[in-house]
């Protein structure tokens, strides 16, 4: 059998050492009536055959020239990132429970925490959560635990990614928490801070602020933060880490800064992979530290005073606190933080700023090119990062389908999640899209909108 080293001589000698007549004897405690039938699985394939099969499948896949963002972004990943992150010692280690045998992973996580905290202007960070959406779920639960009004409302703008909102719903429903959606300004595509006045007199546990928001627009984070802090609410910023190369970090929003920053780390060197694995990051200010879910690494010393790293503050975690833990999370997305750490180290502040600025410039060009096409209009005005909403004079589904047949993934249809935005799509351009790419999209779209006329 593949991957099993036992020769028949091994098996015989081992059974003899055990004193068992045969392999079946070892399973004698399983009641007979529970024994499984022979499973109906596909015939096994050798390495060459499975290789051929999967290569055929992968050859048909891929997303062509892609202008979809909507929570997952195609960035250039420096070759060194996965060449190093894919090393066996990172790949095949377990969670670093035995600190002395895991200093590689531990020191790396400490550095990762540092970089994420610096990026978000927070005091501490954890070692990752599953992804952006479930990370926001954890952040909301944490915010409530830390809030001055733990029984109050949890305000989530409709400009937060619809799937993030769905996951928050999943994670709060059975806990009888009061999650309230805040509508957005239909002209600006962002929250009008004045909307919040309606909640002035009810206790608010937490406010979630996305930056940039799902439509790519920049929220008035300072005003929103100050309002929420004034209400005694915990402020949770959901941010795109690439944008933080340019944008004001959550820790510096408003007078006091947000309390928690979270988001999806995928843009930091993680490939799209149809949706995962990505990772969620979570950072916070000092007072909230012990409410943070997930693993945290700290620096300590050995008997000789040498610096070393170790999992710490474990009294928050399920394996110690069981039913009273801050979360059930155990396995997280460790390897993705290895990639993100290498990515951030390679780019540094100058690189990250240039990636962010280039994304913005490309998105701006794209929106200009598209809206120059008759029948295409821009929705929402105001500052944005690297995404924007455009509306067609026609139904979006057939247009996008036709574009896809021509090798272009044109954008994300907003109609399902936002019925009021029927006929609108969300488009994105990152630094990976060249001027030629943008022009090709514009030309193709123009052709598709034309051809299908009538």
């Amino acid at each position, binding site marked *: 059998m593949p991957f099993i080293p036992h020769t028949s001589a091994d098996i015989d000698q081992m059974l003899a050492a055990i004193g068992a007549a045969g392999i079946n004897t070892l399973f004698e405690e399983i009641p007979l009536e*529970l024994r499984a039938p022979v499973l109906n699985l596909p015939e096994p394939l050798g390495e060459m055959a499975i290789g051929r099969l999967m290569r055929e499948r992968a050859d048909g*896949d891929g997303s062509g020239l892609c202008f979809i963002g909507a929570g997952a972004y195609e960035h250039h990943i420096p070759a060194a990132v996965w060449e190093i992150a894919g090393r066996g010692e990172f790949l095949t280690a377990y969670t670093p429970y035995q600190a002395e045998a895991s200093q590689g992973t531990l020191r790396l996580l*400490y550095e990762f925490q540092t970089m994420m905290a610096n990026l978000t202007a927070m005091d501490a960070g954890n070692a990752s959560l599953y992804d952006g959406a479930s990370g926001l779920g954890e952040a909301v639960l944490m915010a409530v635990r830390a809030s001055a009004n733990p029984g109050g409302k949890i305000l989530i703008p409709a400009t937060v990614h619809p799937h993030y909102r769905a996951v928050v719903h999943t994670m709060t429903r059975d806990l009888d928490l009061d999650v309230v959606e805040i509508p957005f300004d239909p002209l600006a595509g962002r929250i009008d801070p004045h909307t919040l006045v309606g909640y002035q007199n009810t206790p608010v546990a937490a406010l979630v602020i996305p930056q940039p928001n799902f439509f790519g627009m920049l929220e008035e984070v300072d005003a929103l933060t100050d309002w929420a802090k004034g209400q005694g609410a915990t402020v949770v910023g959901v941010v795109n880490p690439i944008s933080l190369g340019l944008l004001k970090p959550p820790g510096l929003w408003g007078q006091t800064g947000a309390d928690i920053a979270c988001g999806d780390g995928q843009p930091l060197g993680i490939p799209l992979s149809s949706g995962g694995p990505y990772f969620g990051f979570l950072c916070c200010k000092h007072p909230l530290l012990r409410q943070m879910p997930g693993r945290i690494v700290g620096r300590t010393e050995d008997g000789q005073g040498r610096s070393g790293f170790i999992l710490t503050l474990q*009294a928050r975690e399920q394996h110690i606190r069981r039913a009273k833990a801050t979360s059930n999370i155990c396995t997280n997305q460790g390897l993705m933080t290895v990639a993100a750490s290498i990515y951030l180290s390679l780019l540094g502040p100058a690189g990250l700023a240039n990636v962010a600025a280039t994304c913005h410039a490309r998105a701006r060009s794209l929106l200009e090119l598209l809206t120059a096409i008759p029948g295409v209009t821009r929705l929402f005005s105001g500052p944005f990062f690297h995404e924007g909403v455009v509306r067609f004079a026609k139904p979006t589904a057939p247009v996008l389908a036709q574009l896809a047949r021509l090798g272009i993934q044109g954008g994300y249809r907003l109609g399902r999640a936002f019925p009021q935005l029927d006929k609108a799509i969300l488009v994105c351009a990152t*630094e990976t899209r060249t001027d030629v790419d943008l022009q090709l999209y514009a030309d193709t779209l123009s052709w598709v909108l034309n051809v299908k006329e009538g």
Partner: protein
Amino acid sequence: MNDSLFAASSPGRHNPHHLPDPRVGVPEIPSRFLRAQPPQLPQLSELQVVRHFTRLSQLNFSVDTQFYPLGSCTMKYNPRICQVLASLPGFVHRHPLAAVESGQGVLRSLFELQEMLGEIAGMPAVSLVPMAGAQGEFAGVAMIRAYHRARGEDGRREMLIPDAAHGTNPATATMCGCTVREIPTNARGDVDLEALARAVGPRTAGLMLTNPSTLGVFERQVARMAEIVHAAGGLLYYDGANLNAVAGRVRPGDMGFDAVHFNVHKTFATPHGGGGPGAGPVAVASRLAPFLPLPVVKKEVDESGRERFSWLDEADLPSSMGRLSTFAGNIGVLLRAHVYLRMIGAEGLQRVSDMATLNANYLMARLCAAGFTVAFPGRRATHEFILTLKPEADAFGVTALDFAKRLLEFGIHAPTIYFPALVPECFLIEPTETETRETLDQFVEAMIAIRHEAATQPQRVLTAPQSVPVAGGGIGRLDATRAARKPDLIWKENQPR
């Protein structure tokens, strides 16, 4: 190795070939949205980065470099071919929201995985979405709650959990708004059936059970337990973390469970990545199928027999417990599991559990013969087993922790220690099927050597490790108390190295 990434940073050092467009200017965004200071990231050359992280990697123990018999974690060989095939450009570069036509290869593979996992579970419906075991548990308990709610029994909020259970079980129950009721274990390692019978009632949501249990033994009365819980109106959740012991031999569905999660990063050989990512797909009995987390892969066959794969979503599964991830979970990890299962097949899967069990029983027999004490004598080991080092602790003052740390110096990763908590000086050992007998023999020799040291020069063991055999010379035993007392969680300027 003592160089900090941050201490090596030098202002202005950067890698211009990673600037996508050096000519791009500062964007016209009002300054109130912009950061005033660049983020404090390290400023390093590419060689510095490559060298730093390469050297860090060398400080780890890993399956690729050491025997890693960490109980409950199934640290077996992660085939490189799975890694390579899941990383093919077509898979890796596909956007999650791209048209399904551009993803028929990945969707077909995921669909096949759903089918294979259903067959292994003995259950008809599968969702691949959960991103780790704990999230699989969450999905399971949330489905159980949704089920009761749908039947107008939302008052069923009590989850029964054996005291030996993994911490994620009670933590999950809490996250799903349940209260936890612990069921004790008897001296033979079985759940106390009387206590279970007493505990069930109209508030019972269900029972969460691992079988084989975390005690390394098979729960023989599982059918009876299912009867008791079902009779009381509860459902049964199977924590599949230990499936490597019995896959192909016995199926959760046949044992009476209603839901199960798999740890593909254990049973199906996807790497653990120093803490993840894994994946925790769930399989369920038909009564729970309407509540599966979204999205699920669907297959349609057109008139000409052409198959087309797409995602089921809210519109298709209106009773779903909901979404758990932004997109559809850890697809890259699931692809690895798919390749693994397609390579081993049914016979191979049974061979996995056979040899995992053989290795554990052999190691247990040899350690017993060498005078160590097993926690549940007279029981067969499953894929793992427990030693209690209480006798050694009493005789020499040397604990399970000390044994664990000293093992590291032999170039062997320590077993899981102090879990499950019911066994004093607990050593939970899981060799896995991919290790050779020779390696197991080396482990026995190391254990004997350490016990001899414990008897003759206990200080050597008590102060271990002095230095673990990794590049750069390693580190001695680290002070966990100090770390927790005064947390130092991020690097700061002028920090001592």
